């Protein structure tokens, strides 16, 4: 092999060649360490000409800066790959990506939620990446089962899970104290929770601001839906189930929080989190991704716990960020190779990513000491068995807006929960039928 073909041989590149030669031995040793070891196995180094990669995501919260730091570190460690990160609101991001792919303006690497993979794969927006998974020696045992399985569509893998991010219950210790509640023992079941809200109300505190927005109203609803033994769709994914008993109970509980005076009406987007930061409320059911946002607020005395069990069983909504490779109109093999290196690298740094307020997708990382040191993330990771993801069905994204609207209307007291849900279910059923015809 002619060294000149690869350009200047960096130390890293040399390591790669050597490591590749003794791949067989190294393979067994490097599986699933999840540490920041400098392994350079086959498929994980890039020696081609300098490339620029575009990486889009929707990390608009506290997780954005953490990813940005990782990206910068990657860039500094790789002379011939420069990754540029762009962040949009998730809504905008989801709209832009397919349009960008169609016009050949898509980024090379993106992040998608696990519930979006099936649809994106069906539409030809993302590329299969079985080889990347192989290079990372990823197997089902390394992940929580639903997360791993959900990344497969029609027998091909389309996403590499980066993390899981569930809903957790943040509690404001100062506010709980002021109402005479135990700030170190937040409620974990329906009765204790109701008592706490009642006590807070006596002290003129609206204990739980119920937001009507998808973040996090719809997610709260889904958590409760599962807690009350309902589900979004029937088990064969053909009909809506969210308007059944479980759904009505879940949404009614949420609406009652507003009606009973434990929450203001008409909350603005993110106003519940702002209120939590300003010590105006006690409980905030929010995503694990808010850990750093809250940690950065001076004078905020807070903690986080798994969601209380309001229904018949424990459950919490969760989603998962997955790396995806976007389809390019004119594929560039260099850029593709570099993209895989990038995905590999970030995936191995998942402990670092966990610091942004995520639970690493990889089991070994979750069980590592480094992760245990992240107190809040570890607390929420205890919910792993109870985490639920949306059904992985092509076109599931067309159904969720109806649920979001129903939650919005009910929480804003514009419709009764059962009416809002049944209206939504009616439309959802039509969309499901249409999608079955469209996607096959």
């Amino acid at each position, binding site marked *: 092999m002619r060294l000149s073909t690869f350009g200047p041989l960096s130390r890293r590149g040399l390591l790669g060649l050597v490591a590749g030669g003794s791949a067989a031995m190294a393979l067994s040793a490097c599986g699933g360490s999840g540490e920041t070891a400098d392994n350079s196995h086959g498929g994980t180094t890039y020696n081609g000409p300098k490339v620029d990669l575009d990486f889009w995501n929707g990390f608009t919260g506290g997780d954005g800066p953490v990813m940005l730091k990782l990206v910068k570190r990657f860039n500094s460690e790789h002379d011939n790959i420069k990754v540029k990160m762009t962040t949009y609101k998730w809504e905008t991001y989801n709209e832009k990506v397919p*349009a960008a792919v169609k016009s050949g303006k898509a980024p090379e690497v993106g992040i998608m939620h696990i519930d979006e993979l099936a649809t994106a794969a069906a539409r*030809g927006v993302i590329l299969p990446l079985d080889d990347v998974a192989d290079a990372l020696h990823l197997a089902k045992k390394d992940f929580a089962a639903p997360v791993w399985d959900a990344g497969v569509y029609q027998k091909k893998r389309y996403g590499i899970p980066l993390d899981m991010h569930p809903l957790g219950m943040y509690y404001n210790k100062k506010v709980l104290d002021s109402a005479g509640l135990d700030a170190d023992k937040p409620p974990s079941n329906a009765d204790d929770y109701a008592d706490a809200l009642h006590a807070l109300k006596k002290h003129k505190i609206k204990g739980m601001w119920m937001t009507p927005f998808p973040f996090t109203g719809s997610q709260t609803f889904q958590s409760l839906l599962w807690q009350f033994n309902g589900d979004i769709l029937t088990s064969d994914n053909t009909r809506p189930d969210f308007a059944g008993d479980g759904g009505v109970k879940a949404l009614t509980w949420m609406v009652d929080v507003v009606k009973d005076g434990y929450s203001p009406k*008409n909350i*603005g987007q993110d106003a519940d989190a702002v209120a939590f930061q300003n010590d105006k409320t006690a409980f905030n059911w929010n995503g694990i991704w808010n850990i750093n946002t809250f940690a950065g607020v001076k004078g905020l005395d807070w903690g986080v716990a798994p969601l209380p069990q309001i229904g018949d069983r424990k459950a919490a909504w969760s989603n998962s960020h997955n790396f995806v490779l976007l389809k390019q109109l004119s594929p560039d093999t260099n850029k593709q190779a570099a993209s895989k290196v990038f995905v590999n690298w970030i995936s191995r740094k998942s402990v670092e990513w966990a610091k942004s307020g995520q639970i690493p997708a990889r089991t070994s990382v979750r069980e590592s000491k480094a992760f245990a040191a992240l107190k809040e993330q570890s607390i929420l990771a205890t919910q792993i068995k109870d985490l639920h993801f949306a059904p992985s069905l092509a076109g599931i994204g067309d159904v969720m807006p109806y649920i979001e*609207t129903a939650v*919005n209307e009910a929480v804003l007291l514009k419709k009764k929960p059962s009416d809002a849900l049944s209206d939504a279910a009616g*439309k959802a059923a039509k969309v499901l039928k249409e999608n079955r015809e*469209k996607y096959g």
Partner: protein
Amino acid sequence: MAERNRTRHTGRFTPYLFLAPYLLLFGTFVAAPIVFGVWISLHEWDYMLPNKPWAGLSNYTDLFDPDSLDFDDFWQSMRATGIFTVASVPFLVVIPLGIALLLHRRFPGRNLFRALYFAPYVLGVAVVGLLWRYLLDPDVGAVNFVAGLIGLPDHTAWVNSLPWAWIGLVAMTVWWTLGFNAVIYLAGLQDVPAELHEAASIDGAGVWHRFWHVTLPGLRPVMAFVVTITILASANMFGQSYLVTDGSPGKDTRTAIMYIAQEGLRGFKMGNAAAMGFVLALMLAVVSILNFRLMRYKE
């Protein structure tokens, strides 16, 4: 005789050479799209999929069929546009007239004031939208703060509850664009012949009488114009909803343009979106014609 002069010394092709550059652009980006748009609206045109089956008029009839998927969303967005138009047009027609009357006199600084009231208009909707998103923020916005200072409720949810979202959207639009209408009125006022006013004063008519019977009738054509362009502008509202309320609460402030653009350019249901566009355009055409007839009839 003049015509013969014009055509002498000019090549047969000169007019076409002059017209060609513009016509190339016009043909590509105005004429073709209109025709193409009709073509698209007659198909099931999903941009991401290879097949674009013929749909006849079904994209249009679907919009009037309560059982179709698009019916609810489309008419809700039309309703949103309708509410905004009905709410904003009166303010945008009357207040600028008042301001024009204020400015319709000679005094030092008049041009300065005229420029000041017009200035917000040159800021695009992006600047105005971001600015008012902040001002209308229910928790940290200046509007609620000032409201609290003067004894009004200080926690109105301007951004995501009705009717406050509409009030906020209308108020910001009035702030933004009333200077434009005021300038048009000013020009119109200057056009009202002075003799009519003089005649009226000689007849002993008071200020109000003169306004009602001389100024207003003289302004009729300008007013018709202002009403028409304001209705069209309001029906086209996109940026304010997109940036300030994002369609909230629910989808109640999602205007027709927002829905059409989203369905067509992000949802890629281009056939449906094109049909919606034409239906909206037709309705606007009817409204404009009615408007002109009404204003002319009064004379």
